[in-house]
């Protein structure tokens, strides 16, 4: 087995004259969980589809599980499990029938698929929904079925495009727990997400993409230390611009996102002193997290 599971080297893709992926390089090692973060339209889904050989790059080289993609993508796909951004289950079929049909796409016999269905249903906690039509399932159950379906060929690599978008917190935590158990079993995962908490909890390494270009890469902790490295105070309820001017001398950086002011303050006490006595403000002091990194890298900094 090759040492890296995914290797992107200088990969570029444009539609018309618009660059969707620009000179992107990264690698994902065996057993690693690699996250792709980025705002809407950054190119995350395009990248995951390139891993599967569904979109040929204009330039650059892609190798997945040791085979060149897209040239021999079929060989790679035989050992990949996919959770697409939008569910594409067969709504008219039951849960069990969905798994059966999908297993056959991998050339599995009916008997082979039936042998693995119980463990997949158990994995997805869908044991008592086996004979329910998929159209009748909730969004969370559909997502779990999609996850179970992606495991039918016992893949080495899982490609997941926003696996938990649209799920309630219970469903999300359940999926996280399942993904961790897959990592414990040695699977490699590449996932895209808009949940910073998800990336922070699951990913060994991640890559922040904007407009198809990599703007940061590293393990979540290191990125937080490197990009933020100090306490954060969130302030809402006042005029962000006026407040910004007031506390600017006491902080490292200020960012405005919507109606919230984010102050990156090496000495938070000083800032709190400045704001003392002001009514109607809500303050929250906390350690930095990945969301701060994301906002810093992709957001607009207040420049006055």
């Amino acid at each position, binding site marked *: 087995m090759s040492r890296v599971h995914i290797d992107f080297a200088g990969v570029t893709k444009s539609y018309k004259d618009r660059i969707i992926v620009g000179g992107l390089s990264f690698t994902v090692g065996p057993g690693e969980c690699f996250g792709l973060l980025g705002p809407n339209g950054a190119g995350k889904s395009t990248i995951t589809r390139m891993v599967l050989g569904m*979109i040929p790059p204009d330039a650059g080289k892609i190798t997945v599980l040791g085979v060149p993609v897209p*040239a021999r993508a079929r060989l790679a796909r035989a050992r990949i499990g996919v959770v697409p951004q939008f569910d594409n289950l067969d709504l*008219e*079929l039951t849960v069990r029938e969905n798994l059966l049909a999908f297993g056959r796409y991998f050339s599995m016999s009916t008997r082979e698929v039936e042998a693995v269905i119980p463990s997949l249903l158990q994995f997805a906690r869908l044991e008592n929904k086996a004979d329910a039509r998929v159209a009748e399932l909730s969004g969370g159950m559909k997502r779990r079925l999609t996850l179970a379906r992606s495991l039918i060929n016992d893949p080495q690599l899982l490609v997941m495009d926003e696996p938990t978008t649209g799920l309630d917190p219970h469903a999300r935590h359940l999926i996280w727990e399942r993904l961790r158990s897959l990592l414990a079993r040695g699977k490699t995962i590449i996932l895209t997400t808009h949940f910073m908490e998800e990336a922070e909890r699951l990913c060994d390494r991640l890559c922040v993409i904007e407009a198809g270009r990599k703007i940061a890469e590293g393990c979540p902790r290191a990125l937080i230390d490197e990009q933020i490295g100090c306490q954060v105070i969130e302030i809402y309820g006042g005029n962000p611009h006026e407040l910004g001017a007031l506390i600017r001398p006491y902080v490292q950086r200020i960012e405005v996102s919507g109606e919230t002011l984010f102050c990156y303050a090496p000495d938070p006490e000083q800032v709190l002193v400045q704001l003392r006595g002001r009514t109607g403000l809500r303050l929250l002091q906390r350690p930095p997290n990945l969301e701060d990194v994301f906002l810093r890298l992709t957001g607009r900094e207040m420049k006055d």
Partner: protein
Amino acid sequence: MWERYVAALPANVWNWVAVWRRNYLVWRKLALASILGNLAEPMSSLFGLGFGLGVMVGGVDGTSYIAFLAAGMVATSAMIAATFETIYATFARMHALRTWEAMLCTQLTLGDIILGELAWAATKSILAGTAIAIIAAMLGYAAWSSVLYALPVIALTGLAFASLAMVVTALAPSYHYFVFYQTLIVTPMLYLGGAVFPVSQLPGAFQQVAAFLPLTHSVDLIRPAMLGRPADSVGVHITALCIYAISPFFLSAALFRRRLMR
């Protein structure tokens, strides 16, 4: 470019079966409605035209008009079943339902999927075509053994029309465009292809066009079989239908690749 096209062709000779079985699994749930739906139209044409016109027309080519028409309706129903399955149901699976997208995440290639869809559309043609043939046999308009002879031709007719429709499906931006294919190609073929009246009744120029139409070749094989007569130029008709089945398949694979994998 060529290499990528080859990669989109069928990976082996059995992968398509998984696609066929998926469609069968879904169809099974609505089988009764589907069969009735597929039969209703050709049956009403058969009896409406057959009895109604039959009275005025009398005999055609030495048989009753309804027996003449029954053979035409077998070919026509195979054409319609394969065409509609492909332009509506296959288009839905490719587009709105994202079924193909799921299949493309597995070891199936685009060619495997297209082949499975063609085989499925041909299966529906067999159901529709043989149903009419069986009814014709029950009413005494055809010999029972003729149903057996007609069967491979019905299947080939289904494949040819599914394959042609697959090209249209690959090109159509949305459902609305299929109306053009139906009204400009399929419906005229019904009248030009010798299904409802003999091609010899057409003006000369149209007869020449008719000679190239897939439905004409299909009717020229099915009608003699059903009327228990020897057929002329069997090899030519079969070759023509095979060309109509095979070449659009390769074209549609190229078109779908451009549409879906870019």
